[in-house]
Each structure stands twice: as C-alpha cells, then as structure tokens.
C-alpha cells in the first residue's frame, strides 16, 4: 500500500502566548506562511521584523518551501521578532574584496582626492564578490559619478543579475557621512550599506576605523557600531 503524504496540513503558531492553527501547503514558501500568521494575529506594527522559530530555537528559513524546510503537520512554531531582519542580513565579503577596494581607492585617489567604489554581487544573495570603480570626477572635497557610466552600469546589472551591495568612498581626514552622502546614495533602498574610509584609504587595509551606516526605512542613515554588524568574511 502506498503511503500518502498530505500536502495540506495545519501547523500551530504561537504569538504573545496565544496559539492559532494555520493551514499550509507543502509547496508553499515559508515566507507565505509567515504572512498568513501575521495576518491571523492582525499584526500591523513592525511585522517585517517577525520570523518563525522552531521549538529547538532554530529559525525557519523563509526562502524554502514548507516541505524543504521540514515543517511537519501539527508542528508548533513561534512567531517572534528577529533582529536579523532588522539588519537585513550580513554582507558576505569574498576573499580579496577588501584588498581590491583599498587598492582602487589608493591608486585613483593618490592620497589627495576622494574616490568611490561599489561592492557588487549576485542579486539573489548577500555575497559581495566584485568591486566596480565608477568613472567619476574627483577632488579633495568630493567626487561625482559620470551619468553615462551610471546608465551603462544599470544595464549591465540587469543583464548579469547582479546588484550593488554597498558604496565605499574615501574622505580626506575623519570618516563620517556628510549631508551629501546622506542625500545621494547610489541605491536608496532600505538596508543599503554605505562605508566611508578615512585618510583617502592610505591607512591599514581594514574596516576598523571606517564609518559604516545602513539606510533605514524612513530614509535616514543608522550608523552601525562595528563592521561586524553589516559584514562578515567568507
């Protein structure tokens, strides 16, 4: 006799101590289940920060189907805030990216001009595995990216399914985000990372003394306490 695996079944989701049953389909994305749960509990505030957790403390991956995530009928899942989401995940920096970044900034800036590069990677992941150096005008007090180069870049990104993960630029002295930096990021999406390197990147090849910020939903920049809050090495 063939065993039949039910495709549709119910799971129990807990929020604020209350348990509700939610119907799921094995092929459904966990992200969709999460949205159902959020709707079931009528959560309207900061719902984007919520995730589903198993009773063993592990996070249920949202980019998997219910079946692939291993969710079983009647399984109890906890709906609770996930700080990871607030941070939009960590950028995973491939080997050599940081060295290449400093090399480009130093060669172009020559210790006397500001310069910028963009960290690039596949659109569907947090991986950073390339550095793009834009055509730009430069001075000791700023840089301006060439419009035509920008248009070409967007075309290239679309065809290669890659995206800009972070902008990195130099300042003459101290690392900070200027009003211009605040207003004109190359990507104005929530979670975008901006890094400012002091002393025209002539110092140590490290993000230790840099300014690192993340763009918030309200368009303001949130300065991060350390590079580890935005970036990890792979």
């Amino acid at each position: 006799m063939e065993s039949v695996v039910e495709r549709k079944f119910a799971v129990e989701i807990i929020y604020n101590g209350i348990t509700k049953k939610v119907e799921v389909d094995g092929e459904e994305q966990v992200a969709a289940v999460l949205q159902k749960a959020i709707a079931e509990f009528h959560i309207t505030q900061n719902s984007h920060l919520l995730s589903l957790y198993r009773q063993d403390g592990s996070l249920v991956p949202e980019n998997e189907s219910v079946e692939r995530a291993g969710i079983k009928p009647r399984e109890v899942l906890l709906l609770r805030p996930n700080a990871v989401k607030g941070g939009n995940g960590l950028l995973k920096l491939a080997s050599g990216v940081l060295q290449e970044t400093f090399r480009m900034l130093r060669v172009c800036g020559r210790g006397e001009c500001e310069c910028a590069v963009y960290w690039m990677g596949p659109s569907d992941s947090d991986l950073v595995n390339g550095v793009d150096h834009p055509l730009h005008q430069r001075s000791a007090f700023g840089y301006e990216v060439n419009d035509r180069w920008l248009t070409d870049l967007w075309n290239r990104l679309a065809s290669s399914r890659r995206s800009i993960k972070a902008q990195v630029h130099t300042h003459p002295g101290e690392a900070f985000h200027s009003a211009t930096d605040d207003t004109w990021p190359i990507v104005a999406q929530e979670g975008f990372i901006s890094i400012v390197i002091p002393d025209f990147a002539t110092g140590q090849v490290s993000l230790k003394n840099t300014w690192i910020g993340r763009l918030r939903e309200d368009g303001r920049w949130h300065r991060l306490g350390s590079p580890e809050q935005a970036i990890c090495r792979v």
Partner: protein
Amino acid sequence: MNALEQLGRTILLCRDYSSDTVSDAQICQRFQSVRVLCAADKLNLSSRSGQTCLTTMVALLSRMGMQVSLAIPETSMIQQQLPFVGPLLRSSLLASSNRFIAGATVQQDDSRHKPDLIFVLGDSGIEDSSSPTWRLSGQEWCGRITQETTHAPSWASDWPIGAMVSAALAAGEAFKYVMRCLPLRNHEDHIFFEPSVASNWDFGSIGIREGELDLGEVDIVSAGAITQATLYALLRVPALRMRGRVFDDDVTAATNLNRNMLSVVSDVGSKKALLVASRCSPNFKFTPMHQRFSIEESRVQELAPYVLVGVDDIPSRWQVQRCASGVLIVSGTSHFSISSSCHVPGAPCSGCQHPVDDLGGPTAIPTISFISFWAGLAMAVRFIRHAVGAPYLVGRQHLWLTPLRMDQPHAALWSPVVPIPNCPVGCLSSRRIST
C-alpha cells in the same frame, strides 16, 4: 514631573493594541483610575515569602500608576524589602505612596471605594469579594494565582522566588484589566488580554543548602530595569552575598520609574550605577562604574566569573561576550515578551542568540513594570542556579516568555541556543559549525 511622563513607556506599550482614537492622557488616566485591593492576614505575612509577595505586588502595581489599598495588619518587617524602608511592613508600604509614580497612592483600605480588582495572599480571609478576586499562592520556586475558590495554602517559606512569581502574575492580570477597559485597534486582539482564571509558573525546584549563599564575584553591565529587577529579587534571598562592579553611564530618568525596581521619584537625575551600588549595600558590595563597559576596561581588569547583561544595545552584548571568560547571563524584553539566556564557554554565545543589531535606533522602547520584572527574575534564577551548581540543561538555554496569558500552554518556550555560522562574536561554537 508628572505621571504622563513617568508612564510614557507603559503608554507606548499599550499603543501596540490600543485604538488611535485614545490619547496618551486617556491611557494614563485609565491606569491611574484602577483601584486594587491587596489583602492578607497575619499568618500569611509572617514569612519572608508572604512579605515579599505583597511588597513586590504593590511595587509592580504602583509602577503602573494604579491606586493600591491595603487590608493587612501591621507587622514587623522580617527582612529589608527595598526600596520600601522602615521596620514595619504596612507603614513602609503606605509610605511608598507617590514614591514610584506621581499620583500612584498606597492607602489603608477604608471600604469607601469598591475595588476594581482584589488580590488575596494565600488562605487569608476576605470580607467582600464582589470584585474579580485572585488568590496568590506558591512555593519556593513556583507561584500561582487563581480565581477559583479552592483552598490556597498560606505563605510560609523563607525562599522568595515563588512569591515574586505570583506577584508578577497578579500584576499581569491588573494590566490586562486596564487593556480591557481601553478601545483596541482590532477587536480580536482582546484575546491577549482576557483574564486568567488560574495561572502558574514554575522555574524548577532545586535544593539550596541552609546558611550563607555566596555568589562570589559578578560584573553587571547596565544598571537599568532588567538588572534592577534581578538585584531586587536577589536582595530578598536569605543570606545571599556577592560583590563586583556595576557598569552604566546613564542617569535615572523620569521615564525609568515605570520599571526600575530599585528607583524612586527622588532618584531622578542620579547616576544609575551609583544608585544601584548604594541601594544594594551592605548585602552586596558593588563598585559603581559610571561608564559604559568597554573592551579597554576588560584589559585593565578581567571580567568576573559571572556577568549579568541587561543592556538593550546588542553590539554591547557582543562586546561583553567577547571579553567574558565565565558565565554570561543576558535578559531583555521585546514588547510583551522577555528573552533570557545563559552562555557558558564553549556553548552557543549571546552573539548566536542576538546575531545582528536592531536598527531601530535610539528610539523610546515600550516597557512596563511586570514584563521587565519577569526578565530580571529569570536572570536572578539562572544566576542562583549556576552559582549552586544546578544550571538549566542545554534545552533550557533560552527562555522566551510572554506573561500575558500565562494560563495558555505556550506562554513560555524553552529552547537551546542554536550556533550560527555568522556569529558576530565568532564564538567557538559557531566556528565549529563553520568548519
């Protein structure tokens, strides 16, 4: 300084569910208009646990701005019940009127006003129970409240944890009463605020040897709501001693009074580290460090074998974890829930538990007395258990508790902490899975 300002964070928490048509002043007024009668007889107040249960309940209710009346006999304080001061229990509770929140009075019951809610300790008798009434009972490590008329045992134990559990359960019921009086944004959200006919919580019983309990050296990072609740709880444990440092660069604000269990109105403006160290003296010998904890500090002097972290700032938790070589206990709150975890060398660390900074920025955090208290109490229990060699097993490394509907089977979830490959601390446990 007024109650609206002092209850600002409590009002903010209510905003999670209250209708936008209600003003802050109306929410504040709703809390202040609640009358709670606390009743107990001499027998139930003749133990440390009974006195702790009553004082904790009064403190938690007052810090929500409520009006408390007492139907209790005068009796001697068996032990200090800070921040209540004085040799007599009833007198010191009455003297706390307006000391926690402006307008939150503690008065002797005169039967002129019908209470909205009644809380009765153990098997104490009560004349009138026409208002919703709960009996508070418990044992060393567990507490219970019930509306049922079944017999509740009297308070007799010296050990105070269960007493504080039942006080916190009672405070939760009082809070839900206020929420039921407010219009909610969504009618179905009433489910979170339904009264519990009976609820209980058990931290798990362990044996404690009689005599002095010396917890040794401890460093405390943050002297805010969580660690004040922890120290409030530990101060009530008989013959408990410890020493160490308290790090905090902040001063007490009016908005802290709704939850900082060792602080009173006159403390506003005072340095938190200094306040905590002086209030815990002479039982606990703390050196106040009016500064943020830094890695440099740990180079000057290594962190103590036990570190209690109550700081909200997640990167600060990572920093402490990087420097800690012993047991790290972290507690925090998130709206109506608490998170409490313990991290020993080699096990998944607090970076695995809280991997990325919350980017909300320095905005006002919604909090309320009894939620912060649960977080601190859970930390105190973990600390004691470790110190006496009976820590929770791995499956209870993390506690996620929502003390609203403690009558529900999933009000709390214990779980292990799962190591993550991108642990910001880079702990041993995370490195093992990365390789």
